[in-house]
Every structure is written in C-alpha cells, then in structure tokens.
C-alpha cells in the first residue's frame, strides 16, 4: 500500500499505522502487519497454545528472543537455578527457539539482556517499524520512532500464527516539554513529572508523541527511558520523532541496514516525523524548568514529588474514597503526612531494569558512587540491562567503582524490577529503585518501592536515605 496522499497532514503514528494496514473489519478494527516480534522467557504459554492448535509459525525470521524475566543475576548457568519452575521457564524458551529456528540471544551469548535494552542495542529497533512483545514496557522502542506496544499471550499466539494483530486505532496525544533542564534532572525525572501531571490513567487509549526542545535534547538512551514509562500513564505507546540523535545511535549496529540499504532507509526515516500541520487529539505542554529530581512516594507511578518537596497529607484530599485509598498507601509505605521526601531511610537500592539499565545510567550512578561507600546496613545492587552494557561498563572501570563503593555488580536481567526470578526484597524493606513500578508488592510482598533516577538511587545508597543528588554532586 503506497503512502496516502501527502495532502492530508498526518502524525508519525498515523504514517506508521497506515503503512502496516492489511485489512479493516466492519467494526473498524484494523489488521496490522508486525515487523518485529520480540519474545522472552515468559512466552511459553503462547507456544503452547500454538501447539495445541497445530499451527506453524508464519515468519520465524521476524521473531527475536532473549531470556530476561526468569534468569538469575548471580550466574549465567541455567542449571544453577534452584527453583525448578523458574528453571523450566528459561529452558522452555531454549526449546521453542530451537524448534522453530528463532534468533536467540541466549543466557551465555554476548548479546543477552533485557528485551527492551537489546532491541535498540542490536539495531533491531528502527524508525517506522511496528513491534510487539508480551511485555507492557515494549513502549520503550518508540523512542526510536517505531510503533511498539505490549501484548498479551493470546495476541502473541495470533502474531506467531499470522504475523498480524487486530487493533482499534488509538487516539493521539502530543506532550511537549520545552525549556532547559535543571541540574540533576534526567529523562526519568521528566517522565515521572509527566505521569504525576496527567495521571496513571492520563493517556489510556492514546499513543503519546513526546516533543519539544527538552525531548530533542535528550540522548537516545534518555529517550528510551522516557518512552519506557509511557505505559505508566496508561498509553498504548510512546514515541519520539527520529532525528540525527537516532540515526547516529543506530548506524553500525548489528541489525541496522548497511551501505545502500542504509541510505534508502535514512531517506524513508526522514519522512516519518509528524507533518507540521498534523492534528493531535490531545496536547499537553510541560515547562521543563519546573521539573526537579523526582521520586515516587506511593503505590502508583503518578504519586511523585520533587525531591525538595513534601509528601502530601491525606487529610487534604476532599474525596472520601480517594482519601481512604491514600491512607491505605500511607500505612503500606510507612509514611507520615506532609513529611519531607528526604526523610525516608532506605534498606536497599536497585539500579537496573529496562527503564534505567543502560550504560549512561550506570555512568550517572557511578559518578555519585565514586569515592563514596554504600551506607551501613544498606544492600545495593547494580544489574546491567544487557551483557553488552555490562562489558562496556567493565571496559570503563565502572564495575570497580561500584565494587569499591560496596555495591553488588551483577549479570543482566529484569531482576528486582518485578522479582519473577526470585530476586525480591524482604517484607517492610524500603527500596530506592530505578525501575518503573512502585506497585504494592512489586518487589516482593510488603516491600516499599520508591522510583527515581540512577544518580538519585546511587545517592540514596551512599547516604542511606532518599537524598537530593544535587547536594552530593556539588560536594
């Protein structure tokens, strides 16, 4: 299907949507062709459904796999996983990819890592592609100008069998962040601020395009962090228009096009950004100068405050149902009304995840850890997002910085972001985490999670409490 008449201005999302339309149903749902299908070690139920129906995989060459959710981060030896049920998850992926000839970044391979870290890293994620994965943080890949969203297992089965997916066309939302960013303010702080502004439900049914000078000024890795958490505002997907930052990042990566193919792709990619007159269903404007280093206090990513601010007082909430909900959160999280964000001592630190497990994240954390030491009684982990991130960090000596400061330096995986591999905190522990969800029990039953940037998490590690990183950076 050739591009539609350029006379009608379209958003980047609409251009990608139109290019992937195979069919439309009478009820308006559209069958979309999937360019890349990423899977992980939680995908066995989909293969099982496919087997039960006796269906083949339509396009195994479009599928890429890596184990991340169930892998241990203290070893690369599958047989060392003590829990047989968890070991079986990792082994099932090995079996499925071998049976179907799917490209695999295995546990001992040099490319293994969290699926949303390795997609961009390998050059699998490219502008204009439609990508899916059975994980809600698939929104990450939109940072490179792809349309990427998380799907459930029945949908995975459908994509395995048909390489397509039925979707109702979402609405569009542009979030423009303009102005200079203050000291210590990262992509993580921008997205936490955005979610606090529009709410955890703020973008339900919408694809977000992030725009504005503060977004254009972000590195590729910063944009990946930003788009990663789009789902925490309820969005179907999050996207950033591809530009020289994107192209510079992508060029030369293993799966990126080369030579004449690169030039052809580049010409296409330059036509992807939203047309100047394209209309979005909703527009949100954010003043970048109002964003401070930010942490979450509650059990939803929307419960965020500036580090120099105060945790709210449930008594100020007028709606009785919301007040009761807030009071429950205060009990679970061990908070006092109106306390300063910096009044919270922490027990653990988790630096990693598909949100903040990339090399720039580790550099930022190491810059704070260097020459300091993890506070007494605090356990601090650094879990690289991929094996290549780990190798790069070691080449730069960051592993030694962390180890000398008393951090654990671990292997790549999802780890304590959701603890499916058994790596969880103890009940009542308060964790400073660079991951994406502070849901009740997310890092283990009874665990209290505060989300923040890698530098802020490192600052919490070395001070033993939630700390304004700007004070350490000055010191």
């Amino acid at each position, binding site marked *: *299907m*050739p591009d539609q008449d350029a006379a009608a201005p379209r958003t980047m999302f609409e251009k990608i949507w139109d290019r992937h339309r*195979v069919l439309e*149903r*009478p*009820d*308006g*749902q559209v*069958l979309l*062709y999937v360019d890349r299908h990423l899977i992980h070690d*939680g995908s066995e*139920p989909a293969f099982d459904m496919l087997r039960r*129906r006796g*269906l083949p995989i339509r396009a195994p060459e479009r599928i890429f796999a890596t184990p991340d*959710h*169930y892998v241990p981060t203290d070893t690369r030896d599958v047989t060392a996983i003590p829990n047989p*049920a*968890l070991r*079986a998850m990792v082994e099932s992926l090995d079996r499925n990819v071998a049976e179907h000839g799917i490209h695999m970044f295995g546990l001992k391979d040099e490319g293994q890592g969290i699926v949303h870290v390795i997609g961009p890293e390998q050059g699998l994620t490219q502008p204009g592609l439609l990508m899916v994965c*059975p*994980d*809600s943080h698939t929104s990450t890949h939109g940072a490179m100008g792809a349309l990427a*969203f*998380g*799907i*459930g*297992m*029945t*949908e995975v*089965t*459908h994509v395995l*069998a*048909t*390489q*397509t997916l039925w979707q*109702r066309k979402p609405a569009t939302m542009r979030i423009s962040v303009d102005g200079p960013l203050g000291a210590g303010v990262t992509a993580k702080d921008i997205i936490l601020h955005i979610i606090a502004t529009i709410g*955890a*439900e703020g973008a*339900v*049914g919408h694809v977000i395009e992030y725009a504005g000078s503060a977004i254009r000024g972000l590195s590729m890795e910063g944009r990946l962090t930003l788009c990663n958490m789009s*789902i*925490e505002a*309820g969005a*179907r997907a999050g996207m950033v228009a591809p530009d020289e930052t994107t192209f510079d990042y992508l060029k030369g990566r293993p799966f990126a096009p080369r030579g004449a193919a690169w030039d052809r792709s580049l010409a296409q990619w330059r036509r992807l950004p939203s047309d100047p007159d394209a209309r979005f269903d909703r527009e949100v404007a954010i003043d970048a100068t109002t964003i401070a280093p930010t942490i979450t206090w509650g059990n*939803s990513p*929307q419960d965020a405050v500036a580090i120099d601010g105060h945790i709210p007082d449930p008594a100020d909430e007028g709606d009785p*149902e*919301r007040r009761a*909900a807030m009071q429950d959160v205060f009990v679970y999280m061990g908070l006092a009304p109106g306390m300063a964000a910096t009044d919270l001592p922490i027990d653990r630190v988790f630096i990693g995840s598909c949100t903040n497990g990339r090399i720039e994240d580790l550099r930022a954390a190491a810059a704070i850890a260097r020459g300091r030491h993890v506070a007494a009684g605090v356990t601090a982990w650094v879990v690289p997002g991929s094996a290549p991130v780990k190798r790069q960090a070691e080449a730069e000596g960051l592993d030694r910085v962390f180890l000398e400061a008393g951090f654990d330096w671990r292997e790549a995986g999802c780890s304590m972001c*959701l*603890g*499916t591999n058994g790596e*969880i905190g103890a009940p009542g522990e308060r964790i400073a985490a660079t991951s994406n*969800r502070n*849901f*009740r*029990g*997310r890092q283990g*039953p*009874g665990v209290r999670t505060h989300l923040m940037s890698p530098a802020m998490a490192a600052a919490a590690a070395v001070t033993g409490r939630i700390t304004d990183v700007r004070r350490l950076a000055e010191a």
Partner: protein
Amino acid sequence: MERFTTLHAAAVPFARDNIDTDQILPARFLHMARDADHGACLFRDLRAGPDGTEVADFPLNRPGWRDARIALGGRNFACGSSRENAVWALHGHGIRAVIAPSFGDIFAINAVKNGLLPVVLPAEAVAALMAEAEAHPGAAITIDLAAQTVTAADGTVHPFDIDGFTRHCLLEGVDELAFTLSHAEDIAAFERRMDRGNI
C-alpha cells in the same frame, strides 16, 4: 473460548482507582501453567495475609461476594503489566465480567480473548452500582451482551458499547484467530508488496 451471552449474578465492588495487574495476580505466580488454578491466586496479597489468613474486609471475603461473578472496578482497572494471567485469575475465580469507568488497554484486549467481558460505563453509573452492591451485598445484576445493557438490581438499565466483531466472538464463543487465518491470502499479498518495497 467460553460463550458470553447473559449473566445474572452478584457484583463485587473494588472501589479503588488504578488497581494494577500486579495486585490481581502477583508476579510470583506468573510461571504457573495456563491450566493451573490461577483463581486461587486472585488478589492473593490483598485477600490474605502472608500466612494465608483471610483479610476479613477484603471484598472477595465478605458474605454475598465470595461467589460473585461480576466485578465492579474503579478507573483504569487492571493497569500496568500486560500479564494475561490477571485475566486467567479473574476467570478462574469465576468472574465473567468487569464493569469499570475505564480499563488498562492491554487488560481489556486480553479479557475479551478469554471470554471475560470488560464493560465500560460512565463513572456515575459504576458508582451507583457500587453503592447498591454495598447496600445489598450479593444482590444480582444482569448483563445482556446481545442487548448491550447492564441492568441494576433496582431495574436501572445502563447501555454500553463494544466492537461488533468482539461482541460476535464472545456471543459465539469463537476467537478471532480462525477468522484471521481465513485471510491468509491478504497477509501474503501484503508481504509480497512489502518485499517489492511498495510499503
């Protein structure tokens, strides 16, 4: 897939907004096989303490709602993780429909593919259904998918929208995969155009 036609059953209210799928099915149960008893793990950490003792005031533990087959949810019900296991847990417990002002997008898609009907009603209508449920725990309400209505215990009728094909699949108990496979030639034609660089 199980058919969904009409349902006349008690509705259990979960009044909070932004109930996430980590609450509906905690991550430590995600490795369970598809045919394992996910229903037993529904809301595990809200429903029971660490030792398994029931939390008395959790809605599913209250008289009248233990066997509820309809859930009432707050805004953005089942947000967060894409885990289809959350749907399996609700379904496994016996819940066949959830009525809420809005849903996490991925959950709503997963639900209909498993015979669990997500019904979006205006916030005021959901609030009224919740108030009625609280006043008369166990009182039955009726969902009629063909008519696209929810009828409250007091007789108030709330119409709702649903995509036509999704409704058809639920009413007939069929999934869309067979339908898509019947269009394999359209997909192949798309792939040929793509290979020629016309897409």
